């Protein structure tokens, strides 16, 4: 009988996927437009962070724009008001994201999924309104956070972040390291615990694990990476748009994650790539792009909930499993 521990689906994502992805991103700015590629990486990181919570822990947050936007504004503010370097600013973004996630976690992580989704949405909306009006003096209100001084890296060597290629490879570096970190988180006993929580929370609790703490940590990581992505977005744009805090941002990252496949590791990045590519091609021509997005969403949920990578995986794995079964059947010994 085949050893149970060889069952691939209970271990984490294979590192092949990670290296292939990193390789693809290494060369892609020479194939498609560099800004688009940069955006794909940034939102890809956002989606991976988001999916850490959704696809891997099974918790839906409808307000992840809060982390993204907070990260974006933190980075911009750190540079503009405190004269921080880009490295420090990104560190600040990540820290703020983790902090916000801790607060939200402390308040809401024990709640039923439904409540958590609503609370997260409400908190994000609160930040949006805060940035829009009462805190206008610091955030720039509707215009967003502007006038961020010339962006460049001083350490370890000088990099001009205003020109596309150096900017791209800087983002590549940060996102690449993050992807490896996220991969490592998922490919660990902790990652397996998250999977257990997603599959059957009650049983995991009954098995004696501190599920609340695990969910909390997952949320904190999720907030951290999403905020880091937000910080990168600010570096990429050179300013901090209010849109980053808007509910549509939360909805779009959700759509892209599901489009790619929320129960896979790299699915969200694929979803981001496909969506941003389509948006790049079509939103200029179509006035009713949001209508298309909404219909896409509805269609996905009804017809294709496993997403692109999810569907591919189940077809491919399905064929693999069948082939294995056939091979075993052929080589099995005759019963005595």
């Amino acid at each position, binding site marked *: 009988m085949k050893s149970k521990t060889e069952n691939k689906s209970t271990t984490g994502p294979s590192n092949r996927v990670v290296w292939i992805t990193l390789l693809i991103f290494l060369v892609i700015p020479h194939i498609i437009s560099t800004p688009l590629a940069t955006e794909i990486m940034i939102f890809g990181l956002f989606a991976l962070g988001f999916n850490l919570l959704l696809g891997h822990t099974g918790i*839906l947050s*409808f307000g992840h724009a809060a982390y993204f936007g907070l990260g974006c504004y933190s980075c911009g503010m750190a540079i503009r008001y405190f004269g921080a370097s880009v490295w420090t600013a990104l560190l600040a973004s990540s820290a703020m994201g983790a902090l916000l996630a801790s607060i939200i976690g402390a*308040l*809401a992580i*024990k*709640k*039923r*999924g*439904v*409540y958590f*989704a*609503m*609370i997260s*949405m*409400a*908190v994000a*909306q*609160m930040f949006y*309104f*805060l940035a*829009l*009006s*009462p805190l206008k003096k610091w955030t720039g209100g509707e215009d967003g956070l502007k006038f961020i001084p010339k962006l460049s890296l001083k350490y370890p060597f000088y990099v001009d972040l205003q020109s596309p290629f150096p900017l791209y490879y800087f983002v590549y570096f940060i996102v690449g390291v993050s992807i490896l970190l996220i991969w490592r988180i998922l490919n660990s006993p902790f990652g397996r615990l998250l999977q257990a929580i997603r599959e059957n929370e009650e049983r995991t609790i009954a098995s004696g694990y501190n599920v609340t703490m695990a969910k909390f940590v997952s949320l904190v990581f999720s907030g951290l990476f999403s905020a880091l992505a937000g910080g990168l977005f600010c570096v990429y744009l050179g300013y901090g748009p209010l849109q980053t805090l808007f*509910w*549509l941002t939360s*909805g779009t990252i*959700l*759509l892209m994650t*599901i489009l790619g496949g929320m129960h896979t590791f790299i699915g969200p990045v694929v979803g981001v790539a496909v969506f941003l590519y389509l948006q790049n091609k079509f939103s200029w021509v179509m*006035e*009713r*792009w*949001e*209508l298309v*997005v*909404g*219909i*896409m*969403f*509805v269609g*996905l*949920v*009804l017809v294709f*909930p496993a997403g692109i990578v999810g569907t591919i995986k189940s077809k491919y794995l399905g064929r693999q499993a069948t082939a294995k079964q056939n091979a075993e059947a052929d080589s099995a010994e005759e019963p005595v």
Partner: protein
Amino acid sequence: MELNFSLIMTQVLFGLALGAVYILMACGLTIIFGLLDVVNFAHGTFYMLGAFAAFVIISLFGNFWIGLVSAVFIVGLIGWATESFLIKPLYGKDPLYPLLLTFGFSVAVTDLMRGIFGTIGKIVELPKGFTGSLMMGGIFLPKYRVFIIFLTLAVLIFLWFFFKKTNLGMIIRAATRDSLMVRALGVNVSRIWTFGFALGVGLAGLAGAVNSTILPALPDMGVEMTIECFVVVVIGGLGSLGGAILGGLIIGQVISFVSLLASDYSNVAIFFTMLVILLVRTRGLFGEAGRL
């Protein structure tokens, strides 16, 4: 600006009128959630549709009351169709899916309305006899706001009567508790669900129609209303009509007084309130015991 009694009472009244709209919304959301276990992320969108339906009918027929009533039925009908074709296929699957679907639905419909009606708000004229205010004991009572309060009271009484005294109401209450059992007893639960959804969004449509004389109807107001609705329901506890009512009342007063005292924060106030209440009583004021 001195805070005298008359000013405070006026604000309380405004708060009640505001709260009334939120109560209608929250009750609709609670009915849908209790019966179908679906969190209707498109609830505010139906509110928006109600406002537009009222605007269109009133523009066509000139009569406010026809507009109000038709709006409820139109939205109810749209809800009927939505549940039958979009939500029903998702039963039995991951409870995440109806959430996602209703969200996508709201994005799509909002943009569709933007395409049809543009982004300039449409406002409905106050019906004759409801313009102006009453003066009672030195307090200003705008007639229309009083109307809203009484209308909501009437609706609540109707709902109470419906759920407690009618057969269909009883079936719905039973289905909220245990759908499987109701089905085993021979009731077509699927149709009950559709009706429940239509009823829930009908309430939202009513709220939108009623508000159409006060706020201009804009496609984008749907999602904002949904989020505010969620705050009401988180405060009051999801699954309890009493909670929906209490939550609505609280939110109404909060918005009213914050608009008066610190108008810059009027948008944010309800979220602060939600956070404070969460800190103090983690499952909402009327939340179901043991089910956080």
